[in-house]
């Protein structure tokens, strides 16, 4: 180094310019900036990574509950008396399933309670039952144990998403009921219950009476085979406590329950602040302790179409719609895009017109997607009279949007093929077309495919252009063809995010996960294609 510098010295520069103190300081400064830059870069990557992890973990944690669905197994009576095998379509399957459920709770008699009870199972029960019977007529003729999907609120409660529910704790004193049903009095052997109620938001009245309103936590006492909800407590003689309560599930007898025989369950979230009542919670817990409830893989979510009931809503319709739309997009954008790129790159003369076309293609790639939607509405729907909400129109709109991206990517990869390949081909007598199609295009194909797949992935995530052509619609049937009404995944996510029912929140996240999986798969294919076929020069 020094030798080289001293040779410069011969042309009149001071020899010490790179070794004096100022130079050392400069060098140090340069290194410092470099270190700074390195750290800043690392910090930027870390920050981006952090956001990604945050986003993904939020979506994944929200989506996990949607991957499972709770079912209750009920003995469904499908004997000839209920179901006439000759008239399967006229049977009221919902009523049969609801009868099986109410039979489990013989003590539920009032009309309102019965309605509440029937609300435990999904309104789609009858549809599933009919479908399964059609598939397996062997079910008919007797009583079968059939797993019925639970309604969304019951399902959310069992997943722990509706209320803070404590566990059963043994009461360390005796409990004596006055009656087995209705509004009853309970006598507790000691006054520990008073402090407990006070700690859970009971309002203090005269004579030390504590009232548990709907704004306080619910205290449920289970004993003698039934459950009582406490409504008020007051101290009585000998340090005992007399509590008033409403029986939710009737007790077997008025025999006193000894210490440790009765159980207390506290539901922290006040009844007024949750969408599920104490009664329903008690019923669900009874079904659960009877071993009738099981959580299964949520096949409904993956393999059915949309629904207004969260527990019946699935993504399959949107997945099929996305698939059909993407096929149309690919079938239009790929051949046209690649042909355009080949012509512009290999055959077109370089003149003012081609330059202008080039500039316009580059600009088109940056046009907001909603503009393509408006174009589709004006041209395809209003002028050509094509069907609304159809994948064929959606695919055409997305193809227009993807075209410039494919053209640009294809031209870049065609340009990357060395001229020597073309010259060699021309040199041995190949025509221009033969040169391009036999030699240049195969070499450029991996790059073209990568560009196309990335363009398609971009199109798959589009919502805005489809708003205009009616793909934001509620469609239950799975689309069977290109002209059937359909919707696509991002639009389905958009719609679910807007529905008021709480159950749709998890569905939204789960659908986002599915969309992300699709995008990752498409990008992975692009990477694999490039890796396998790319030639380096």
């Amino acid at each position, binding site marked *: 180094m020094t030798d080289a510098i001293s040779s410069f010295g011969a042309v009149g520069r001071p020899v010490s310019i790179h070794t004096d103190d100022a130079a050392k300081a400069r060098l140090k400064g340069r290194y410092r900036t470099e270190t700074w830059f390195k750290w800043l870069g690392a910090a930027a990557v870390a920050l981006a990574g952090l956001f990604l992890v945050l986003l993904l973990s939020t979506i994944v944690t929200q989506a996990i509950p949607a991957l499972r669905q709770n079912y209750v197994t009920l003995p469904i009576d499908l004997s000839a008396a209920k179901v006439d095998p000759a008239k399967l379509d006229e049977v009221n399957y919902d009523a049969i399933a609801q009868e099986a459920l109410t039979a489990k709770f013989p003590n539920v008699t009032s009309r309102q309670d019965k309605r509440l009870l029937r609300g435990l199972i999904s309104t789609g029960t009858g549809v599933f039952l009919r479908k399964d019977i059609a598939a397996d007529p062997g079910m008919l003729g007797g009583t079968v144990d059939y797993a019925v999907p639970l309604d969304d609120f019951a399902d959310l409660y069992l997943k722990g998403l509706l209320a803070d529910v404590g566990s059963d704790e043994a009461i360390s004193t005796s409990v004596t009921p006055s009656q087995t049903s209705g509004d009853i009095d309970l006598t507790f052997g000691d006054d520990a219950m008073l402090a407990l109620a006070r700690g859970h938001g009971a309002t203090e009245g005269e004579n030390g009476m504590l009232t548990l309103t709907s704004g306080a936590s619910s205290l449920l006492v289970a004993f003698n085979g039934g459950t009582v909800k406490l409504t008020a407590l007051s101290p009585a003689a000998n340090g005992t406590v007399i509590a008033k309560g409403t029986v939710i599930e009737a007790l077997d007898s008025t025999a006193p329950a000894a210490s440790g025989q009765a159980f207390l369950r506290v539901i922290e979230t006040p009844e007024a602040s949750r969408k599920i009542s104490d009664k329903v919670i008690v019923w669900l817990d009874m079904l659960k302790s009877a071993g009738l409830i099981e959580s299964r893989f949520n096949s409904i979510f993956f393999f059915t179409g949309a629904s207004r009931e969260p527990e019946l809503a699935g993504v399959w319709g949107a997945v099929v719609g996305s698939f059909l739309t993407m096929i149309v997009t690919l079938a239009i954008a790929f051949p046209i895009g690649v042909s355009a790129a080949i012509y512009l790159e290999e055959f077109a003369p370089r003149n003012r017109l081609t330059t202008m076309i080039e500039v316009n293609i580059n600009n088109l790639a940056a046009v907001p997607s909603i503009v393509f939607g408006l174009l589709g509405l004006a041209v395809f729907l209003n002028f*050509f009279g094509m*069907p609304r909400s159809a994948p064929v129109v959606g695919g055409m709109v997305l193809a227009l949007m993807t075209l410039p991206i494919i053209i640009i990517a294809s031209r870049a990869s065609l340009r990357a093929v060395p001229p020597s390949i073309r010259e060699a081909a021309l040199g041995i007598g190949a025509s221009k077309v033969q040169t391009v199609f036999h030699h240049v295009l195969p070499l450029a194909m991996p790059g073209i495919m990568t560009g196309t797949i990335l363009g398609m992935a971009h199109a798959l995530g589009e919502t805005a252009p489809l708003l205009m052509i009616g793909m934001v619609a509620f469609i239950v*049937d799975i689309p069977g063809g*290109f002209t059937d009404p359909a919707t696509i995944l991002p639009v389905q996510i958009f719609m679910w995010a807007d529905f008021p029912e709480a159950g749709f929140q998890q569905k939204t996240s789960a659908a986002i996960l599915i969309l992300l999986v699709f995008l990752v798969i498409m990008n992975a294919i692009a990477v694999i294609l490039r890796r396998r076929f790319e030639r380096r020069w």
Partner: protein
Amino acid sequence: MKKFLLTASAAALALAASAGYAAARDQIQIVGSSTVFPFTTAVAEKLGQSGKIKTPVVESTGTGGGMKLFCQGVGENTADFTNASRAIKDSELKTCKANGVTPVEIKVGFDGIVLANSKAGTVVDLTKEQIFKALAKNVAVDGKVVPNPYKNWSDVDASLPATKIEVLGPPPTSGTRDAFVELVMDAACQEEVKAANEKGCGEIREDGAFVEAGENDNLIVQKLEANPNAFGVFGFSFLDQNADKLQGHKVDGVEPTFENIASGDYGVSRSLFVYAKKEHVGVIPGMQEFIAEYTSEAAWGPDGYLADKGLIPLPDAERAKWAEDAKALKGMGS
């Protein structure tokens, strides 16, 4: 490679050709209001489940957009029904008539517009006048019309809490906003403001006290949860579905409950409509079945499944009358 390109282009051509040919439609198409959307979709799904017809396709385009599509004309490429969160306007009816469309009006129920906040916040009892004073762009103070000077609720009325006025509501494009303006702002408009400016009554302040929160009501619910002092304006069904997080406020002393809205006691409610295209009955299969399902007691009755979704049913007599007119396909203006 050549083969692949050829196949791909052939496929593209075949697609383009098939698109020009539209098969006779065997599925009902419905457009219109996003407020009625949840109810119509529920009916559509029920009907589809019954297996009587193919499940209708329901699109949420807004009332105005839906009317435009609906009144476009008669034929397979036009919608069969439109949802509306207000009655059809004269101008729209005229367009319909000019294009040969006879709408059959069906009033399906009520929707209450509620003012709600998080359960962590305080409950207040508001009058329409107080809401007007809190949210209007211009108000009358001592007989003079001035830009709204009120910062806190307590400035509007001493009985209200001393918290900042902060209301999240729908944007001007929304039907809910139109109804809110009509039912509250216009109804409680001060004489001075009315006299000073014809537009003055419906104008909502833009100084940050009223926040346009977009069409997504779930977003409003989340924001209210985060800020107990803020109020939100939305349809009753959102309050109903989020009763665990939100509480509705009384307006003019009446609580926004299902019963109060149904009986008409709650002052801020509007009617919801569905319009059927008479010309399509008998042409597009399922039109009559859809009308029959919508107007059945199992759907729109007090115990029907639409009530579970938040639709407030009409009084018994009115329901019977509308159901009869709908089944008789009584067209408008004919």
